[in-house]
């Protein structure tokens, strides 16, 4: 039994033009202390997936189906009051833009103490001591003075450290980090990522890292999900997916990176762009951009055009692709022939 178990999560947005399905059949699990990466381009639904875990989807969005079980407790359908016991306490979040996350009119100390007092019955002095201790953990120079400073007095990297300190404040089981370093510079990003990784390992905190950066995912996480147009299309151990991606989209994404091509040569681009969620292509949502949509006879596979692919197990990874499924069947058939 995993700490967090998400199955068949279905999130929709009721818009005037009709319902848009932002997430379809998203399932994954997270063990205690495990680090999971969710990768995809903008519009793939990775942020919606993270937000829906804590029911942070704002109207007109809503969770239309599926279940989110955290430590044996079902989170969907929980009242706001009950959910607040989990939110920020046992599962905390780190958002992309540290300036938007911190309250500009409260000092750092006030924000941290407010958070502690909302969840625990402790005195102001105790809360301040905990806050100070957490600031020390995220290696902020002169933490004592920082407590009385305001967010605008700090640099971007420093603010993100404070956010991490706040996320760790109540010793959560899971931290959900939504593009935590995208707004930062490369050298600062590397330091923040290293810090986050170190703290998660030390305190055995699970991490769900949402990012578009395959490099960051490959360095920080143990398992990863690749999302496309509201669905998970590939999941498995990070190393295996990075070294040997199975789904044509994952392959395309990896091959499009500049470091995958010889300098000066053309990059291997994926043609077209991600479809809008309100107007998805039939069958596999990736088929109009897929280089493997044709079968051995050069004809487009009917399954790709008509049928949404199911997950197939390929080694330790699970892939939703008709072409991969076909190849696996072929392999199994050959293996069977050989044994007979």
């Amino acid at each position: 039994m995993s700490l967090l178990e998400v199955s068949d999560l279905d999130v929709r947005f009721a818009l005037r033009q009709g319902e848009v399905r932002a997430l379809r059949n998203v399932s994954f699990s997270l063990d205690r202390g495990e680090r999971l990466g969710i990768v995809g381009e903008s519009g793939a639904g990775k942020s919606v997936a993270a937000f829906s875990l804590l029911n942070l989807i704002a109207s007109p969005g809503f969770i239309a189906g599926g279940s989110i079980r955290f430590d044996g407790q079902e989170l969907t359908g929980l009242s706001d009051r009950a959910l607040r016991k989990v939110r920020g306490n046992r599962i905390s979040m780190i958002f992309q833009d540290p300036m938007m996350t911190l309250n500009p009119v409260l000092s750092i100390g006030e924000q941290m103490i407010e958070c502690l007092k909302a969840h625990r019955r402790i005195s102001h002095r105790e809360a301040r001591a905990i806050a100070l201790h957490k600031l020390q953990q995220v290696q902020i120079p002169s933490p004592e003075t920082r407590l009385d400073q305001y967010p605008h007095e700090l640099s971007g990297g420093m603010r993100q450290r404070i956010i991490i300190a706040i996320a760790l404040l109540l010793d959560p089981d899971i931290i959900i980090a939504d593009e935590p370093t995208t707004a930062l510079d490369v050298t600062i990003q590397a330091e923040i990522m290293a810090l986050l990784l170190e703290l998660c390992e030390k305190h055995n905190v699970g991490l769900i890292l949402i990012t578009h950066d395959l490099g960051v995912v490959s360095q920080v996480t143990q398992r990863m999900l690749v999302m496309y147009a509201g669905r998970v299309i590939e999941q498995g151990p990070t190393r295996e997916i990075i070294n040997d991606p199975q789904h044509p989209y994952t392959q395309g994404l990896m091959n499009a990176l500049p470091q995958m091509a010889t300098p000066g040569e053309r990059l291997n681009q994926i043609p077209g762009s991600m479809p809008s969620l309100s107007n998805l292509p039939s069958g596999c949502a990736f088929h109009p951009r897929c280089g493997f949509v044709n079968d051995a006879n050069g004809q487009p596979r009917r399954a790709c055009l008509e049928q949404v692919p199911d997950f197939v197990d390929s080694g330790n990874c699970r892939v939703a692709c008709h072409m991969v499924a076909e190849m696996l069947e072929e392999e199994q058939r050959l293996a069977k022939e050989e044994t007979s």
Partner: protein
Amino acid sequence: MTHVANAPAVAATETASFGKEASTQALLEIRELTKRFSLSGDFLEQLRFKGGRLVRHQEHVHAINGVSLDIQRGEALCVVGESGCGKSTVARIVMGLLTPSSGEIRYDGKRIDHLTPRQLLPYRKRMQMIFQNPYASLNPRMTIQQTLEEPLRLHHPNWEREQVRDKVTEVMTSVGIDPDWGKRFGHEFSGGQRQRIAIARALAVDPEFIVADEPISALDVSIQAQVLNLLMDAQQQHHLTYLFITHDLAVVEHFGTRVAVMYLGTVCEVAPTATLFASPRHPYTQALMSAIPRLEDDRPQHIRLSGEVPTPVNLPSGCVFHARCPYANERCRREVPALIAQGDGTRVACHGVEEGRL
């Protein structure tokens, strides 16, 4: 005092290296460029009471401090650095969107930094710019057709309507946008398509030099590859010269002929791309390169820099990098290092490299 005493030495090495490069006739020469932005408002706002007297108090952001670069014909010079290092300011000054505080910009041997807008007009046709955010750089109230016709009407006032329309069709086709979409507005396109349109607008007047300020950072990975390919195709077809501003070193490695690494308004290293990536010399370049998340290794093994980039309001004395540099010594804190040419075509501004201790 030491700063002042050292300045002529810096200038001397710079002019010496310029003398060498001038013989190959660089397309664009940037010499000793500085740019300060005033933080203290107008004259009345600058007045302060201090010790019972009225004094004038001025504060500046030192965005660029003595940058000298050459861009050769047909090359793609990439300028990399973190936010606030002045790379975009360099691009804007080169394009004449900002006026330098001091220094010179020479285009094709002629000085352009002090020209009036009217005098600059013929140069504007030869040099074009692509901006970072395609959502902001297209006028939301103009159709794509109008957006693309505007530069042509400005620079070719005597062209026939047919001629303008044909040219627009041609550039739209060349960037992979269906010419039938001309009647649409910017907001009807995706980010990648908008950036294609911005590139089409730059290419419309057949420029020879393009300044691209973070042209792909606002785009998704799969779209980045498309736009980068488009820029490389355009370079081959139109024999373009690029000044490419970016913070993404992977893009630089792929795209750049030469790289200039900037830190806090100064150039700390200029080198051919392959040389820079094989053996970065400046400690900052080394740290920057080690910070790229690579796909190969599991663990971040970057060089940890202590502290953060100092504010450009009060520049550190000596080498601007000394406060974060693991190898800094007394001389680094005191003396501004000059860009000194190394054997392999690299130029490095570092006392440690100069003394051979790095």
